């Protein structure tokens, strides 16, 4: 079984739950940016939650199937079509041999997850099928899809058509989007007023937003607590001796535009970070379009862990409903 890529979309990559364990040598985890939607898509078509799927950004691909398969599209509201016939999102539907899966215009969100029964069967590299394009690693030849690619698909199990995820269990960013953040790391480097402003201001997703990180603009610049630059750090007040960057960490080069690192993160560098978006809200970032108004919401560790537990419960409820 294989899928023939007729049109690749804007930036479509193979992703699963990621490749942890190599960040210490600069290889980030990669994997779906919205893993909750990725897992749901897999469960809908009878796959393991962590099977490899296609992550399509803003625009869907056009795919010709060489065998019958069950398909589900979750995450962004990116309406799938089978031979031109529109299908619901978050619902399993059948694509027959020879039929073409295409997509209508994006209505909401940013990334659609396209799961196919059996999973996308590209080779496992360092424990994962995820694509890390910067390192030309994993996925389909280490890159985003191109027209003419032939994607191998694994052997699936039989599930019923029409299985769906209840609307209450579909998580999506609100308006404005709210990202919960635990202050820390180099928070002490910015002034008290700058810290207040940061949480008060409504930021906007900048056009430079990708799998490496999301940049935000339109908030007031942060000012710094004066210091003598430490040896090896560099002279800008936002510089530090190059250090590791946590996933979700919020760095603010020169105090102007915060960048939240995501699943293809650069693993380290020389800019101070003022905190970290909680693990539960990383999925939401993956669904933000450029210009989306966004607020950072200050939370405690206890609140971060509650958010994490809530997310786990949502996934569990989806899995139970589809078991």
């Amino acid at each position, binding site marked *: 079984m294989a899928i023939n890529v007729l049109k690749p979309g804007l930036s479509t990559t193979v992703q699963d739950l990621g490749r*942890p*364990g190599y*960040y*210490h*040598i*600069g*290889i980030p985890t990669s994997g779906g940016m919205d893993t909750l939607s990725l897992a749901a898509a897999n469960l809908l078509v009878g796959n393991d939650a962590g099977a490899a799927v296609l992550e399509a950004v803003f625009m869907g691909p056009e795919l010709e199937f060489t065998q019958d398969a069950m398909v589900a599209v979750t995450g962004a509201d990116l309406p799938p079509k089978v031979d031109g016939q529109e299908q619901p999102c978050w619902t399993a539907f059948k694509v027959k041999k020879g039929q073409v899966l295409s997509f209508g215009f994006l209505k909401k969100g940013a990334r659609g997850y396209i799961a196919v029964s059996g999973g996308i069967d590209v080779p496992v*590299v360092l424990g994962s099928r995820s694509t*890390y394009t*910067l*390192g*030309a*690693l994993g996925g389909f030849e*280490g890159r985003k899809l191109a027209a003419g690619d032939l994607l191998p698909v694994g052997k699936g199990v039989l599930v019923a058509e029409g299985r769906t995820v209840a609307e209450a269990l579909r998580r999506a960013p609100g308006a404005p989007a709210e990202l919960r953040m*635990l202050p*820390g*790391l180099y928070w002490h480097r910015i002034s008290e007023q700058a810290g207040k402003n940061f949480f008060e201001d409504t930021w906007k997703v900048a056009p430079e937003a990708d799998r490496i990180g999301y940049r935000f603009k339109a908030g007031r610049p942060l000012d710094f607590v004066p210091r003598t630059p*430490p*040896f*090896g*750090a*560099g*002279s800008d007040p936002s510089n*530090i*001796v*190059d*250090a*590791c960057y*946590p*996933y*979700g*960490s919020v760095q603010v080069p020169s105090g102007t535009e915060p960048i939240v690192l995501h699943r293809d993160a*650069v*693993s*380290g*560098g*020389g800019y101070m*970070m003022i*905190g*970290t*978006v*909680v*693990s539960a809200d990383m999925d939401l970032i993956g669904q933000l379009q450029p210009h989306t108004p966004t607020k950072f919401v200050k939370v405690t*560790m206890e609140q*971060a*862990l509650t958010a*994490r537990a809530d997310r*786990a419960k949502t996934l569990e409820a989806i899995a139970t409903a589809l078991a």
Partner: protein
Amino acid sequence: MTTRYTFGGDEHIFVECSEEMSLEAFFKGMSITTALRNANIKGVTEICPANASFQVRFNPDIIAPDEMMRQLKALEAVAQSAPSTLNTRIIEVPVYYNDPWTHETGQRFRERHQDPTSTDIEYTARINNLDGIDGFIKAHSGAPWFVSMVGFVAGLPFLYQMVDRDRQIQSPKYLRPRTDTPRLTVGHGGCFACIYSVRGAGGYQMFGITPMPIYDPNQTTSYLRDFMCLFKPGDIVKWKPIGREEYDHTVAEVDAGRWQPRIAPVTFSLEEFSKDIDGTNARVMEALNGH
């Protein structure tokens, strides 16, 4: 040097050994991360040493953040009493200094540089009071360097020269980052050298190029078949200046699958180093000659 612990969200602990870079800070990080690795704490998923800091990723569903913090802090005391010796390896890296490719790239982005009228290597020699390009090469390749961090992108080593602070080569990053850097460029920013593992954007000064691949996701390079990245934190590097002829020859040998880097096991003691920097470096570099 006070160690500072801070949470990076609900999955990371970030530990700053010192605000400023020093070999002592790097070693402190290495000792604690080694102790942490040996402690085999359930729930720890990634341990990432950096220059003067390190980061631990953990699964809070397995180990509570406060408990993780408590165990990590307890390890600092264990690590401090451990002897500061490191069993590691020295790797010789051939460098074609002042090569035509980084030179061409430097010229293309000249308006983004502090000194558009000179080259990166001339500029850095001048601001460090070194005697021209030759004086620069002598200082850069005369003493070994520690790989104090691997990251930014896959397999990219940051290196810190094993000399006292007065002899550290320092240079600022480009005023605005370049959008292009040749693969395998030997660069420099602040007090750190690096080798660009892949072609791409970069802000470090460019001094030369090595013919020796250090990252190969396809694992076809003879010495990268076991693992796709060459460097680990704690490795020691000795730059070997080469000319065009040896550069071309090495590239051909690498492509033919015949080339192997010179690598030797070596023990490094911070105490010995603090007492006698040049003597320790001479002994470390001798290891490459089989002594």
